[in-house]
């Protein structure tokens, strides 16, 4: 829950409110809020928690942490599918056997994603 993953800022959308950037976590790219590190530049590294960059990090530390996280499977835990993980842990029928949501909701589900945090 308090895992913060280092990532590289690959793009910044200055027009977004709140300020938003695209962050690369060792190959996985996700959008993150940059409002708390407003001076960050493309190419710099930040630590990201629940979609928010909290601090800058130097490149060497960030890359070393990312390597370790990947080895330990922490990136999969962080960005994997939480429902699948819950199904595995519960040892029950998949939640996907639940009554199907409406088409509009299903579309939202796809857009909002169901990744773990």
């Amino acid at each position, binding site marked *: *829950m308090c895992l913060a993953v280092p990532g590289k800022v690959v793009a910044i959308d200055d027009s977004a409110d709140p300020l938003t950037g695209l962050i690369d976590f060792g190959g996985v790219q996700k959008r993150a809020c940059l409002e708390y590190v407003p001076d960050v530049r493309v190419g710099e590294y930040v630590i990201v928690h629940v979609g*928010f960059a*909290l601090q800058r990090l130097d490149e060497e530390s960030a890359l070393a*942490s990312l390597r370790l996280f990947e*080895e330990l499977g922490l990136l999969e835990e962080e960005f994997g599918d939480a*429902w699948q993980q819950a199904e595995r*842990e519960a040892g029950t029928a998949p939640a996907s056997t639940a009554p199907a949501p409406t088409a509009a909701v299903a579309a939202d589900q796809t857009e909002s994603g169901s990744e773990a*945090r």
Partner: protein
Amino acid sequence: MKYIDEFNDPALARRLLDEISATATRPWALMEVCGGQTHSIIRHGIDQLLPEQIELIHGPGCPVCVTPLDVIDQALEIASRPDVIFCSFGDMLRVPGSDRDLFRVKGEGGDVRVVYSPLDALELARKNPDRQVVFFAIGFETTAPANAMAAHQARRLGLTNFSLLVSHVRVPPAIEAIMTSPVCRVQGFLAAGHVCSVMGTAEYPALAERFGVPLVVTGFEPLDILEGIRRAVRQLERGEHRVENAYARAVREDGNPAAMRMIEEVFEVTDRNWRGIGRIPSSGWRLTEAFRAYDAEHRFDVGGIRTEEPAECRSGEVLQGLIKPTECGAFGTTCTPRTPLGATMVSSEGACAAYYLYRRMNGPTPQAARATREEMNPVA
């Protein structure tokens, strides 16, 4: 100290462990506050690699574990309503309420969504104006800036169909509660690195002074933890009790001022119940009056839900560091990750789940620890 390419470096691990061994002349009990650190300690067998004099007591710093049963039941009640899209971090799906969890509510037809960021929940509210979108805003100081931003943006956008079920907790009052307990054995703390990334270290010197304990801001990776332990033991042996930052690459003394300003705008300090522990004064945040319209507890009138903890579950004692998970009679028998009695067996940062996953009832030494031991003590 800065680790560069030395993470997972057995030679450095050995140096740190040798120094801890050489420094420690008597038994010391340290508490790692953060559940992420607990997970890392057990996963890598750090507690087993340390000299016998050094005991690690696992603290209550897993926000999933300490979210009160009342609040879980409130979440389940709200998530069951047909007009609601209930959004949560993935960690909360299988935390047991009185009789079910969010995973089961979804199976029963509830519209429960997992989001990566609270802003994803906000986006759902914008796209679904005919539904009430509720975000389960749990967490310590690390998560509070994100949840505060969601409330701030909801008000800025004038969204009337978005609210937060807030159960935020703060580390310093928990440290105070631990240290004032008559059964406290803690002599030093590894303070949670990412909490301090946000809040800085300003609240800690007073605690170090009042209770005479070293507080070492510590990261989450194995070598970070060893370095935090090394510094705490060095202070204890010298009779010192200072705040030290062993995680300087991610923690500044003043934290993140922009994040703290947002927390202050949206939240105010309040007393909070901690699951298994009870009420700790000033240990949490709630939405300020200006944001009360976004408070799901009021909007859905679930504040009256009060529930009792199952008597068999001793997670409260685990969370206070009074017992190890394996000392609970239910551990590994009636309480497993598949059938958890309490949150400490559900969350990957809960001490019980970590023990179950990596130690299996005091069973074999974790693979990582074995490997490290072999690397550190090569057979001649």
